[in-house]
């Protein structure tokens, strides 16, 4: 054993060694997401910037794809992280899991290289198979889709076989069942059809049922484990909460899918079903806030890992505001008729993905760093503790600023382009040229820069936190 405070793989179990590999790639892709977001944001202000070199379409595609993949890598890593502790045995088929990690990472690199260098192809099926599928969020070409399914199946095998051979906990059970849904749903996005209404119907099965159902349940699992690890919360409490959250999340989220079926050609009954169930979607998010904040209070804010705890709380509030409040604001069809397809959606997308998913992944990065350095002290009076606090402030403030800039632009667009000008192209450009829109985009850029600075500091902090620390982690497991 090396000294406390040194990064050493022997501090980790097998699953955790694989987890930190996933976390490293996730953190790098997070950086790529931000970089391409900045480029795309700049093109709103300087339209000729990189014209016909790296057009907005390419930057935006890499921006959102890097996001999906880094969050997925973070989730997979987090699942491997908790697998052995939860099941009580080493990961079954870990070698295969390791192999798949390298294949998955190489495939992502090839897909991104093709996005950047080849970009588009002729209007033929070969383009969809080899270059891009051209469907937002799931642009990855078909060969990559098949690769993703194979990789996820191996990951699923690791999880299911490990819990099955060891012991099933509530966390393990929900995780494995959720993974089945995750894979099954991805298949719905893997075919081509001429009919755009049918295309978008199934496309939303992937996008919505991932992001607003299975991913939300997955972060419920991570939150439960996180609270036990960081606060020493009792299993019985967090697992009961987890079941409540699953009931509320799937109960509202599965039929909440209907809020994407207002305007794509689907029947009118979706206006009522989608409006009603999506209005309920914030309920589980409120429950999560109550759960996390109440538990912290019960434990008098005494945690073994302050940065992780802070990011778990940020997750609870970010999920509630970003996904819950910002989603609810424009989910009823009576308002969505005007806001659908405006910067309003971009505002919601930014705050929701960050609040719900980036935050909890960052919490797990901190949990991992702590153990990787031999379960080092990460509570109060941390050496260099300003770094995690400042990166957290910059990231959160940067995100809120971007969200607000986009929201102002979205309000203006709904009003001028949609309500007044009647949604013509002339109306669209009248709204895009309006000073309120331009100011929104300008401030989005400024706060995007702040967010990027927060990211740099976050990476720096993750690499150095606990380095000169000699105290072992604060023990929180006692009591309840």
């Amino acid at each position, binding site marked *: 054993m090396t000294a406390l405070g040194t990064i050493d793989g022997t501090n980790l179990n097998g699953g955790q060694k694989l987890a930190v590999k996933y976390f490293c790639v996730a953190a790098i892709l997070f950086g790529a997401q931000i970089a391409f977001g900045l480029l795309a944001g700049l093109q*709103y202000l300087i339209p000729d910037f990189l014209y016909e070199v790296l057009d907005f379409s390419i930057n935006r595609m890499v921006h959102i794809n890097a996001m999906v993949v880094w969050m997925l890598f973070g989730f997979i890593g987090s699942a491997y992280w908790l697998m052995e502790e939860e099941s009580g045995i080493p990961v079954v088929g870990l070698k295969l899991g390791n192999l798949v990690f390298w294949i998955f990472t190489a495939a992502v690199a090839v897909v991104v290289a093709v996005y950047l260098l080849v970009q588009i192809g002729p209007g033929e099926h070969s383009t969809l198979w080899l270059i891009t599928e051209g469907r937002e969020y799931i642009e990855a070409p078909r060969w990559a889709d098949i690769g993703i399914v194979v990789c996820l199946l191996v990951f699923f095998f690791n999880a299911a076989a490990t819990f099955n051979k060891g012991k099933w906990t509530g966390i393990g059970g929900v995780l494995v069942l959720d993974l089945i849904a995750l894979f099954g749903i991805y298949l719905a996005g893997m075919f081509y059809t001429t009919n755009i209404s049918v295309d978008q119907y199934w496309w939303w099965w992937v996008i919505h049922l991932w992001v607003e159902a299975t991913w939300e349940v997955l972060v419920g699992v991570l939150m439960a484990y996180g609270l036990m690890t960081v606060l020493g919360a009792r299993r019985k409490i967090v697992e009961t909460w987890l079941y409540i959250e699953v009931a509320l999340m799937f109960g509202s989220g599965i039929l909440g899918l209907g809020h994407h079926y207002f305007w794509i*050609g*689907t029947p009118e009954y979706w206006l009522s079903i989608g409006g009603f169930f999506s209005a309920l979607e914030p309920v589980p998010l409120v429950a999560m806030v109550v759960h996390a904040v109440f538990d912290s209070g019960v434990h008098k804010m005494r945690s073994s890992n302050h940065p992780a705890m802070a990011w778990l709380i940020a997750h609870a509030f970010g999920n509630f505001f970003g996904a819950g409040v910002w989603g609810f604001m424009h989910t009823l069809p009576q308002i969505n008729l005007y806001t659908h397809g405006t910067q309003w959606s971009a505002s919601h997308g930014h705050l929701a993905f960050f609040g719900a998913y980036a935050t909890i992944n960052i919490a797990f990065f901190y949990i991992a760093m702590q153990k990787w350095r031999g379960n080092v002290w990460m509570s109060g009076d941390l050496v260099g503790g300003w770094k995690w606090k400042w990166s957290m402030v910059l990231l959160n403030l940067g995100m809120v600023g971007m969200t607000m800039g986009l929201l102002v632009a979205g309000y203006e667009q709904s009003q001028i382009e949609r309500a007044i000008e009647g949604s013509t*192209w002339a109306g669209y450009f009248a709204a895009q040229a309006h000073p309120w829109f331009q100011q929104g985009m300008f401030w989005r850029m400024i706060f995007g820069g702040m967010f990027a600075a927060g990211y740099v500091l976050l990476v720096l902090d993750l690499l150095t936190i606990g380095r000169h620390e000699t105290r072992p982690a604060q023990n929180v497991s006692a009591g309840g």
Partner: protein
Amino acid sequence: MTTEIWWASGIFWRKTAIWVTAGSFVVLVFLTFDSMSQITAGTKRVPAYSAINHRIEYRFDEARHVQVPVIGAEEPLFGRKLTEQEAEALVDKGKLTVQAKNCMSCHTLLGNGAYYAPDLTKAWLDPFWGSREMREELMVEFIKDPSDKLHNGLGRRMPRLGITDEEARAVVAFLKWMSTIDTNGFPYNFKPLDQEN
């Protein structure tokens, strides 16, 4: 330990979670079958591809209080009437091109996609094209090489995407067909191109 109250028990909530999830999913599957039957091409809401042989209008419906697409008199695209198979093949080529060129990463289709460029749901009916007679050729030329065409006062331009003449015509067919879909009144309050003269 005290005896557990039912609403605080893990087992109760686990059962609830399973039943709620299964129940919601069954309802979704049922609704999906129904929706599919209503959005297959050739139905009332999503017309057949041969609709591109006709004039498409977007008129206010007094009963529903929104605008709905109306398929009018015969007005074949590029002056040539197509059979159902020919029309489907052409629209299919257009849809493939729309995906292969990643149109959705700047534009929205039926309101979904990116917000850097205008929505294409009613591109066929947009007054931007000036007149009915000019529209088809202007659209084809614009799609093939937009870089030197009039766009807007912002300086924001669509790039050249290497779209061939055949692909451009197919994209126009796809856009014309898409404008026939009943989208429950989205976009609202739209002022279509004057097609009377």
